[in-house]
């Protein structure tokens, strides 16, 4: 699969602050690529350099083979950009905004009514922007980003400020954009969003890209720890668990055992041990590390700090 976005050695400073420091990565055709990290990590600046809004001090960027700065008009015909926290005119109607956006491109826009239907905005087509809910506004911004049938879609902090239900609906939408063969480049500081949505993520902190991989790959490489929590009342079960090679610690709290260890085999081995010794459990669950843990491991800080 070929690269749609190529970023190489990009650096951007504001005075003495280094916003982006030697960022390099490729985004492949047809994938959902996430730039993740805490607020202020340099995600938005990186994205704005790729969109041609900002000029990097150093490094090269190519989007669909075009230079985002010198060939910005050519590029804009082929990309779609969702505007982070942007406001439209308070009293513009949904259909007017879509109609206006459709008129901005040299090529023929997609069928606006169908787009509104796909985004669940048909009922709201004559509603004023100010009367839309947060989720509806975001869906409108996605509609505007898709109106020119772009090859690459940029989504910046797409679900910030939305309730969980609206967030899940938006995630489904983003997946449907990928299903239409488009490439999605998004930024988020929500690790859950990145884990559920992205094919690959780049972790960014203090302007630097720390690592790039699929969410599963990052977790496997950086956080091999597995935890099994189970409840049972067999007296000497603890001894059996401690004999499992992958196990590092067993903590007992009355009937509840917390078994910690490393590697994907841990869970299987614990189940094996249970069946071999005929131990009956009343509760069994596994705790797997997630991207939050990866971030903590890589930076020594929680992403929420």
């Amino acid at each position: 699969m070929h690269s749609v976005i190529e970023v190489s050695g990009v650096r951007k400073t504001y005075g003495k602050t280094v916003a982006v420091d030697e960022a390099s990565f490729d985004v492949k055709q047809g994938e959902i690529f996430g730039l993740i990290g805490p607020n202020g990590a340099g995600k938005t600046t990186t994205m704005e350099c790729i969109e041609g809004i900002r000029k990097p001090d150093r490094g090269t960027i190519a989007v669909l083979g075009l230079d985002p700065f010198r060939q910005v008009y050519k590029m804009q015909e082929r990309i779609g950009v969702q505007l982070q926290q942007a406001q439209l005119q308070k009293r513009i109607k949904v259909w007017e905004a879509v109609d206006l956006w459709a008129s901005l491109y040299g090529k023929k826009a997609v069928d606006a009514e169908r787009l509104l239907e796909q985004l669940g905005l048909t009922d709201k087509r004559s509603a004023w922007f100010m009367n839309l809910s947060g989720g509806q506004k975001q869906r409108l911004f996605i509609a505007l980003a898709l109106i020119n049938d772009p090859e690459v879609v940029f989504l910046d902090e797409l679900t910030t400020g939305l309730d969980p239900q609206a967030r899940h609906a938006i995630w489904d939408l983003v997946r449907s954009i990928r299903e239409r063969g488009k490439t999605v480049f998004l930024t988020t500081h929500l690790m859950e969003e990145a884990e559920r949505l992205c094919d690959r993520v780049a972790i960014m902190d203090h302007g630097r890209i720390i690592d790039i991989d699929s969410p599963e790959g990052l977790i496997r490489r950086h956080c091999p720890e597995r935890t099994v929590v189970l409840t049972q009342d067999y007296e000497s079960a603890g001894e059996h668990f401690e004999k499992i090679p992958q196990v590092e610690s067993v903590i007992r709290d009355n009937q509840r055992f917390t078994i910690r260890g490393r590697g994907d085999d841990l869970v299987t081995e614990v189940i094996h041990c249970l069946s071999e010794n005929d131990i009956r459990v009343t509760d069994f669950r596994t705790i797997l590390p997630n991207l939050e843990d990866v971030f903590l491991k890589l930076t020594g800080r929680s992403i929420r700090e």
Partner: protein
Amino acid sequence: MMLRGIWKLTWIELKIFMREPLGAFGTIGVPVLIFLALGHVTNLRFGVPSPVASGLPPDNIPVLVAILIAISAVLSLVTIISIYREGGILKRLRATPLRPQTILSAHVIVKLLLTAATLALMFLAGRRYFPPGANVPWISLTIALLISTWSILSVGFIIASIVPTARFAQPVGAVILYPMIAICGLFVPISNLPPVLRSAAQVMPLTYAVRLLHGIWVGEGWLAHLGDVAALTVLFLLFTAISAKIFRWE
């Protein structure tokens, strides 16, 4: 190419304007009411000497109201620009084919259209003050006002360039623009002003706008005022060049 979507946007902005009844009334209704009120209290009949001793010659009342219309248009444009900028919208829109220049141009067109509409309403409402059969040059006056507004807008762009936040746009604009009315020759002839104010008056579009509007109102014709039109154009170019240098998109 650069201003793709401008007519659609202009039309949308006009519709949006009409969706705000209070704002629409403030922009169009208030100047008309001021005109009617001034006409009423001075009991004026144009062309007939006013029985009320007034500091403002009756011929200047339409000019004053026209200037007020122009200034209110400029102030609202300054506010719109600073609101857009404060929201980061002008910056973000650069990633889309909707150019900030398109937005600004659409707003300028809307302001000019509304200025013309207000003036037209003013004349319709004020017809009873004019002597029967009087030939009010309202088409010429409208054109003169559009040229004046256009030129005063360049001062608005400079104000929009220097105000830090949207909250300050209206007051800063008012503090800069309204005192200009005092020295633009409407109330005191320019030649009677102290030298400093006289020099200031000479670089204000308002001064030439007043002269042009007054001249057209009393029927002097365009030829007599080519100098004023030229001055308005030169000042427009000068101030636009300055604001292009200092304007911040974000």
